[in-house]
């Protein structure tokens, strides 16, 4: 029988339209059961009016994404947090760079 859902890698393309980082590589924590794991392990129901990503542990909704012709609607209520791997920037250097910050405000 054909599976009724995809894995979370199916979110990579649609979310790339919104985020510069690859969110499918992030780690999420389910707001319902607390299960923590890669976004790529979520169960994505795509045969629907939008994308619905559910927790593999409790099946509650972690993320929803609807793309209308002129907007994206993103619901992350079901995720306590996303740990998004980033590289190349030293946060302490940014915080101490007063010149850079004020420059950004100009």
């Amino acid at each position, binding site marked *: 029988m054909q599976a*009724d*859902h995809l894995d979370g890698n199916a979110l990579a393309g649609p979310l790339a339209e919104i985020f510069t980082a690859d969110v499918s590589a992030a780690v999420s924590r389910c707001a319902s059961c607390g299960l923590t794991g890669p976004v790529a392990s979520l169960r994505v*129901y795509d*045969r*629907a*009016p*939008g994308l*619905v990503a*559910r927790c593999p542990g409790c*099946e*509650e*909704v972690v993320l*929803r994404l*609807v793309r*209308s*012709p*002129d*907007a994206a*609607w993103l*619901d992350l209520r079901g995720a306590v947090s996303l740990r998004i791997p980033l590289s190349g920037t030293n946060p302490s250097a940014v915080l101490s760079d007063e010149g850079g910050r004020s420059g950004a405000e100009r």
Partner: protein
Amino acid sequence: MTTFTRGFRGRRRGEDDRLPPGQYLTEDFPVLSAGPTPHVPLDRWEFTIDTEAGQVHRWTWQELTALPYEEPAVDIHCVTSWSKLGTSWRGVSLDVLFEDVETTADYALVHSYGGYTTNLPLDDLLDGKAWIAYRYEGEELAASHGGPARLLVPHLYFWKSAKWVRGIRLLTEDWPGFWETAGYHNYGDPWREQRYADD
């Protein structure tokens, strides 16, 4: 992308008039679902109407299917753009279920086994416009299409016709449901092409 024109081969007379704007005709019955299919044993199935005053009206499967039924033949229109004409159902009119329900509420929040919700004005459930449907094309309604029973509100986009329906909560204030809180239109009239929130 496949498009259908007025000259599409095989179209029957009158079909153009029955196809809302932006819809295409399909002969099959696509299965759409926002989650896993719930399987509810009939001896534990129930349907409820909860009023704004806290009264609960409850029907078991045996009680629901013993009520007078209708067999509507209706066109259905999915917001993902397919329409299917002349579908045949058997179900209990919401007018029958609301006969003994006292309410002054204007809004209904429909909820399903599995957690799905959708909202609509109470008026759109009454006066012969909606059914709790449990048979489709002469057979038991398949679980993939919302069986054992689903709401059938064919004058609105089909996401309003909640699969695996469990009950209706009557509210004095509107409460948007699953897709209505994620960018889809609050009402969803296919003839006015009310797909998204801003349409």
